[in-house]
């Protein structure tokens, strides 16, 4: 009996060792394409297979009974299936569904250019911004080489798609920057206050932007500051115009850092060598100091604080446009203090929190005086009263305190919902005085501005995504509320190609200079419609975008007399256009270039315009070509930027005796051309053991010496006009940037040799 049991066991044992089941079949993806490299495994056993290029698989197994077959492939949802192995061949035809994945999913690109090093779909890197010829490391200047932005040289700001400079706003880590540029000097564009190296990501939105941001009719520039520096280092800048020193210290555990820097700008030597049109009776001087700390929290979040203090003054004298025997002397002193504190934290269950607080204060002391050719101050009689209005002093101060909270919750793999609120408290003062008429007026207003916003990212598949948002705003100074819906969609049309659509309503408060005179005004409004096609591979980007923008409730000037005006919201306008962008890093080895072209058709009736007119900051055709090449052998980079814009309209509106503006003269300026060159020499490039890292940098803007005319200033009579030109035809810069860093990544290896 026992003997037979043993024999039976042995037979069974041998049978199980020899009898095999053949499992075969194929694996396809959701679209019916064969899936190569998918893995099939019998759970708990070694047996299984990998699909070949046709998606087919087959394997033999000696296992018996019920087993779980796991079918998986990276980027696809795995499936499990119970199979019974009993010696008879089994065949399967399986389908794996693609996972929603950030790497594969379509992104919404309508109206937005992303720049940054970590960002997917970035059009420019931080280094691109620094090395674009003509930018001289100014973010705004580099963004001007992208489609949608105008080539404006007589005032700072980004003039986007028929929008004025003040219709574009800058945000750092979510909070608005009240004074992103150095204080205005008439007819001379000022630089931005922030270095591109402070930021790891920049998004330049030319329209249709997210509900998380507001108070900008045409454009937002979203700047995301870097988290922790890669290493501790000391930096120095030496040039005839600027000297600077700074340090960044990264803690040993690499979880926190602090740093500060200081630089001083004084072009006295430069102006002695390169003649300027204005007579600088007080040499421009800029003191800039900043400090920061950054802490990585236990949960992987970041706390960041950045502060910068700037003091600058200048005085310049230029030809008066009413009298050839007079000069206008203009002096400006500015104090600016900016603070930004942010805290990003990852909470449980897919929640993310972004808190931000910011405080800034900006003080300008401005004076202007008409002088004779011997620099003696002049006072005028009532028969030339308009001249007396050129003698004035203005002290103005803008304080802005902000707090902001945004909560973000992931829904599924990629979809998300986010909502938040912000509160701004703004105090604005302006004290204006003229000696002759004994006017001394203090204008001031306070504003409590509140916003609530919610937005959802909805990924239906990797091919189709939508972003739906709404924003509510209330401002106490005008006592008005608004509700702004935003919507955008993206659909992938082929590998690396996609179509995006964006729609949104955007509101903006009237400018401070208008609110000082009346608060009986409402929000200005713009409605954007954008369609975009983009094809982007690793080395090439092609974009084409068309848009239509409608402006409502723009501010109109209601003149009371020559000097005093009030305002209402009866203005309107439109802008439409077509833009192209092409970047290619591949076709020519080591050569990188991009081409931007913008066609713009825009008219508006605002401020003192007498009818719907093409604004003076708009050019019909604008184009830029940016070229960069780095010569590895000589460790030298050479960059060229050529920008072109057709002439812009200019107008002279004269106030008549019944206090109505009349268009006395109009025309178009000549076309704008500028060829800019820059080069960098980096002797220590790639040498990771170098203790000192040096970059020599030189640039020339407007190499060909083209005489740019940005517009005209008209005399009171309208009989004489004076061209607005740059303070000098060319700008030269040469400098040396040194950094002493501690990079220990190679040490361990070298020590072991």
């Amino acid at each position, binding site marked *: 009996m026992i003997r037979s049991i043993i024999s039976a066991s042995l037979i069974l044992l041998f049978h199980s060792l020899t009898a095999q089941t053949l499992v075969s079949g194929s694996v396809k993806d959701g679209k019916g394409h064969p899936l*190569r490299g998918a893995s099939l495994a019998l759970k708990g056993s070694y047996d299984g297979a990998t699909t070949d290029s046709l998606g087919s698989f087959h394997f033999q197994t000696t296992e018996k009974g019920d087993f779980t077959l796991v079918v998986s492939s990276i980027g696809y949802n795995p499936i499990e299936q119970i199979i019974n192995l009993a010696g008879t061949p089994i065949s399967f035809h399986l389908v794996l569904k693609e996972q929603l994945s950030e790497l594969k999913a379509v992104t919404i690109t309508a109206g937005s250019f992303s720049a940054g090093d970590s960002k997917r779909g970035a059009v420019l890197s931080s280094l691109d911004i620094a090395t674009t010829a003509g930018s001289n490391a100014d973010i705004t200047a580099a963004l001007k080489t992208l489609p949608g932005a105008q080539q404006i040289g007589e005032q700072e700001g980004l003039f986007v798609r028929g929008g004025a400079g003040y219709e574009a706003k800058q945000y750092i880590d979510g909070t608005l920057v009240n004074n992103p540029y150095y204080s205005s000097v008439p007819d001379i564009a000022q630089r931005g206050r922030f270095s591109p190296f402070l930021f790891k990501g920049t998004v330049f939105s030319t329209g249709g932007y997210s509900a998380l941001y507001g108070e900008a009719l045409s454009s937002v520039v979203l700047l995301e500051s870097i988290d922790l520096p890669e290493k501790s280092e000391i930096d120095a800048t030496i040039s005839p115009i600027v000297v600077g020193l700074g340090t960044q210290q990264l803690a040993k555990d690499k979880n926190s850092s602090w740093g500060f820097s200081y630089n001083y700008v004084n072009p006295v030597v430069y102006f002695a060598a390169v003649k300027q049109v204005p007579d600088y009776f007080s040499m421009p001087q800029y003191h800039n100091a900043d400090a920061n700390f950054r802490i990585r929290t236990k949960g992987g979040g970041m706390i960041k604080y950045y502060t910068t203090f700037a003091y600058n003054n200048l005085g310049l004298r230029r030809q008066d446009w009413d009298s050839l025997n007079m000069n206008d002397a203009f002096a400006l002193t500015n104090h600016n203090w900016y603070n930004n504190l942010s805290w990003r934290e990852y909470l449980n269950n897919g929640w993310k929190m972004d808190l931000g607080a910011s405080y800034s204060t900006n003080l300008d002391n401005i004076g202007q005086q008409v002088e004779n050719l011997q620099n003696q101050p002049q006072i005028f009689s009532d028969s030339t009263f308009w001249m007396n209005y050129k003698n004035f002093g203005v002290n103005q101060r803008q304080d802005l305190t902000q707090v902001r909270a945004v909560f973000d919750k992931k829904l599924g793999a990629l979809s998300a919902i986010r909502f938040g609120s912000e509160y701004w408290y703004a105090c604005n003062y302006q004290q204006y005085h003229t000696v002759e008429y004994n006017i001394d007026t203090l204008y001031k207003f306070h504003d409590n501005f509140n916003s609530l916003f919610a937005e959802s990212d909805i990924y239906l598949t990797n091919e189709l995504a939508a972003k739906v948002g709404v924003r509510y705003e209330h401002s106490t100074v005008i006592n008005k509320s608004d509700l702004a819906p935003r919507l955008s969609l993206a659909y992938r049309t082929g590998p690396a190609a996609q179509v995006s659509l964006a729609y949104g309503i955007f509101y903006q408060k009237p400018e401070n200079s208008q609110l000082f005179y009346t608060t009986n005004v409402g929000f200005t409004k713009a409605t954007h419609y954008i369609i975009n096609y983009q094809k982007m591979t690793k080395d090439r980007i092609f974009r084409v975008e068309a848009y239509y923008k409608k402006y409502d409730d723009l501010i109109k000037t209601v003149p009371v007399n020559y000097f005093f005006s009030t305002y209402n919201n009866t203005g309107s306008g439109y802008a439409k256009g077509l833009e192209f962008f092409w970047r290619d890093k591949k076709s020519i080895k080591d050569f990188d270039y991009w081409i931007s072209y913008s066609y713009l058709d825009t008219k508006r009736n605002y401020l003192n315009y007498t009818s719907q007119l093409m604004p003076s900051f708009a050019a019909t055709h604008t184009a830029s070509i940016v070229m960069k090449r780095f010569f590895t052998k000589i460790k030298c980079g050479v960059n060229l930027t050529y920008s072109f814009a057709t002439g812009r309209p200019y107008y002279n509106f004269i106030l008549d005796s019944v206090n109505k503006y009349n268009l006395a003269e109009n025309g178009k300026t000549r076309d704008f051309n500028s060829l800019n060159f820059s080069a960098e020499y980096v002797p220590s490039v790639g040498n990771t053991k170098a203790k000192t890292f040096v970059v020599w940098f030189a640039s020339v803007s407007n190499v060909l010496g083209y005489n740019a005319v940005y517009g005209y200033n008209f005399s009171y009579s309208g009989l004489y006009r004076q061209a607005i030109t740059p303070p000098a035809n060319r700008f030269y810069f040469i400098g040396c940037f040194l950094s002493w860093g501690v990079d220990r990544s190679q040490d361990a290896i070298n020590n072991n040799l």
Partner: protein
Amino acid sequence: MTMQKTLLFFALLIGIGAHAQSDKYMATMQKNITLLDSAKTIDQLQSMAGTFDRIGDAEKTQWLPYYYAAFAQTLIGWNPDTKDKDANAQKINAYLAKAEAIEKNAETYSVENMSATQQMLVDPQSRYMTNGKDAAEALQKGLAIDPNNPRLYYLQGMSLFNTPPQFGGGKDKAKPVFEKSVALFKAAQPKPLYPTWGQKQAEAQLALCQ
């Protein structure tokens, strides 16, 4: 046959079974390591990666199967026909994560280095500071654990060899590193199933440095 004998028989059978389990692991690994040495096409290598991954999943406590899965995937990454190196690196890293969850050692760091290097090579100029840094850090960590691992020196030598002299690389810099690698290979006494690859490559590279 008595009951005692029957029990003994079953005891033996169970014992053989338990022993057979580890024998089966050894034998299967040995067989597949040999197969991996001769695998050439992407499909063959992908199939080997899958096989090692299944062995790892079944064994649960062995890092070597996952290591070989990741290593096979790096061989796919070096193949010029592999177009999407980032997607491939994602696969390497998935296998590597399973291996490193069991044990982090010089061998896993050598694969980590290759994965990061393959990603860096997609766009060296812009990825030098990210993937390039990860690759260097992987070497550093590996050497901290085993300063006598010949493969890490081979990989370090390759990195120097392929870096232009003006960027701090070149044949002269690579030569002593390859020499050290070859010397360590000659002295190496790898444990059973442990990786042995690299000696021929290191010798060939050293010859190119002469």
